[in-house]
């Protein structure tokens, strides 16, 4: 054994843990090597010094440990909601939620479309839930209860609940109305009012799940209640201001922030006409789907007067305090929907009203609006695409009236 090998064994020699043969070899080496004996002596002193270290007086940890455990227990309870929110907003969870939503929407959409092939043809002359007579097959049972609900309650209802409304099993009518009678093109998103701008894309899935608009007669009927439910349920999440269009002047666009959430309690006073009808229940009926659409911007000093005028054009309608104008019970009545763009007085500088009218009343509407202020045609009906919207009022009116099918006019009322 040489010195290098001996030095490797010396630290273990201190404990006496060397195997006897190795211990004998080391002992033989140490007997003849003074340097290695000195090394062994130094290691023994080192180990003795370390082993001789006096223990350090420890503080009493019980109180500190107990305090931490108690604090953690309290913090755990207090932190629980806060911890759950970031987890919900984490990208993975958001992706999962979005995927789940798509699956659900797709599932119901497929159910609706697939079920329609086997379902009987719907009755086009259904009566409302509040009306006597046989219940129309086109009205889902699940919607019956909603028909008696105040619309305010619907507005407050969370979006997922609304998107779950058209359950295939409970709503055979839903599958009927969206069946193959639509002529292949089961529904047209351009007519549904959900694709007007990017701002509405976020809610287009839930809406399209419940709002289908037939595009071909004679089966071109929609369930008014379905449409209304879809639109109303989408209101809290959807900016109700006018759809974004690249060419639209910025000052004419309603404030998105103010329209992001509907808060009935903070709305400016609804028109008198609306208040008087606010308590009415909304009957169900089939109404023709709008074939055309126009968008107008009215810059008026008294937006409320404009709203009242628009509401007055219809023979019977309901104006909800939330800002929605429901259809009348008359089968031929216009369907009017209004959504307040503002949640408070200050933000209520613009209001969006959607009016579904027969084309024959378009000119009447236009004339009435012009009495209140400057009317700008932002989007003409398809047949008027090439017309000069600003100046060709007469040709526009005539073309629309010739179309015959009901049309939807989106009116943005901007306070001057």
């Amino acid at each position, binding site marked *: 054994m040489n010195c290098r090998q001996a*030095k*490797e064994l*010396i*630290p*273990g020699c*201190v404990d006496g*843990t060397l195997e006897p043969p190795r211990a004998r070899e080391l002992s033989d080496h140490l007997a003849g090597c003074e340097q290695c004996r000195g*090394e062994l002596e*130094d*290691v023994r*002193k*080192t*180990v003795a*010094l*370390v*082993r001789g*270290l*006096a*223990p*350090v*007086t*420890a*503080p*009493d*940890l*019980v109180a*500190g*440990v*107990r305090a*931490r*455990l108690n604090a*953690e227990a309290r913090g755990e309870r207090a932190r629980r909601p806060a911890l759950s929110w970031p987890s919900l907003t984490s990208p993975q969870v958001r992706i999962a939620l979005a995927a789940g939503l798509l699956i659900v929407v797709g599932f119901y959409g497929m159910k609706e479309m697939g079920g329609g092939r086997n379902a009987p043809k719907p009755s086009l002359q259904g009566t409302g839930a509040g009306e006597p007579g046989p219940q129309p097959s086109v009205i889902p049972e699940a919607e019956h209860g909603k028909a008696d609900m105040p619309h305010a309650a619907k507005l407050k209802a969370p979006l997922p609940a609304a998107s779950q409304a058209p359950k295939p099993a409970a709503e055979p009518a839903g599958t009927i109305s969206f069946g193959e009678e639509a002529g292949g093109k089961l529904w047209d998103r351009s007519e549904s009012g959900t694709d007007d701008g990017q701002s509405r894309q976020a809610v287009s899935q839930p809406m399209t799940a419940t709002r289908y608009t037939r595009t071909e007669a004679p089966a071109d009927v929609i369930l008014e209640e379905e449409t209304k439910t879809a639109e109303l349920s989408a209101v809290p999440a959807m900016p109700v201001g006018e759809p974004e269009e690249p060419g639209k002047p910025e000052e004419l666009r309603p404030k998105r922030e103010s329209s992001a959430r509907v808060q009935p309690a903070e709305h400016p006073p609804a028109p008198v006409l609306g208040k008087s009808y606010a308590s009415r229940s909304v009957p169900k009926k089939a109404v023709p789907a709008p074939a055309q659409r126009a968008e107008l911007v009215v810059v008026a000093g008294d937006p409320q007067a404009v709203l009242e005028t628009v509401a007055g054009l219809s023979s019977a309608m309901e104006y909800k305090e939330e800002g929605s104008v429901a259809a009348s019970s008359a089968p031929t009545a216009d369907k009017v929907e209004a959504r307040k763009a503002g949640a408070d007085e200050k933000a209520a500088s613009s209001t969006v009203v959607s009016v579904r009218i027969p084309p024959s009343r378009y000119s009447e509407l236009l004339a009435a609006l012009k009495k209140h202020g400057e009317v700008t045609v932002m989007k003409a009906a398809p047949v008027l695409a090439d017309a000069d919207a600003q100046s060709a009022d007469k040709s526009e009116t005539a073309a629309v009236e010739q179309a015959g099918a009901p049309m939807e006019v989106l009116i943005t009322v901007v306070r001057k």
Partner: protein
Amino acid sequence: MAETSNTAGPEQALGEPELDAEALVRRAQAGDEAAFDGLVRMFQGQIFNLAYRMVNNAADAGDIAQEVFVRAYRAIGKFRGESKFSTWLYALASNTCRSELRRLRRRAGFEIVEGGKGGPDEPPPREAVDPADSPALKMERTEVMGQIQECIATLPEEFRLAMVMCDAQGMSYEDAAGAMGCSIGTVKSRLFRARTAMKDKLVRKGLI
């Protein structure tokens, strides 16, 4: 932090309180908080000393020891008695010390320079800076004990752990291996190399 010889925490042999510890562990596992407090009292000296030898700082050692017992409280339900409770607790302490040492190395104003291989060309170790230390402790560090402690603190982490457990606290190789999560041979190897490195440090300091 005064180094005394009459502390509750035995830095020598372990195993004496194990019989009592087993009963306390069972009660603590059943939800008896007083029993867990008893375990804290029983082992706080050992755990604190281990941490102190590892980080060379009383305040940090107290934090580490407290963290060890908090972790022990959370995990005591998983202790199945396959090893001694002290070994299980030392394993927790070892891991906590390792993570704390990593944190301390990142912390500004606190440097622990490990002794590397302990060769003669090794630069002198820098002291661990602890502004919270009391003047009395600083004076004590000038004494032999303090210098030995500082030499220990400059050993490589795993060497230090082996030396503290086996030499300073008198643990058996088997218990140290269980606490360090390695084999007995690894413990011996680390310990023997730690002794050699420590001897070189003490020689350079003129302590031996």
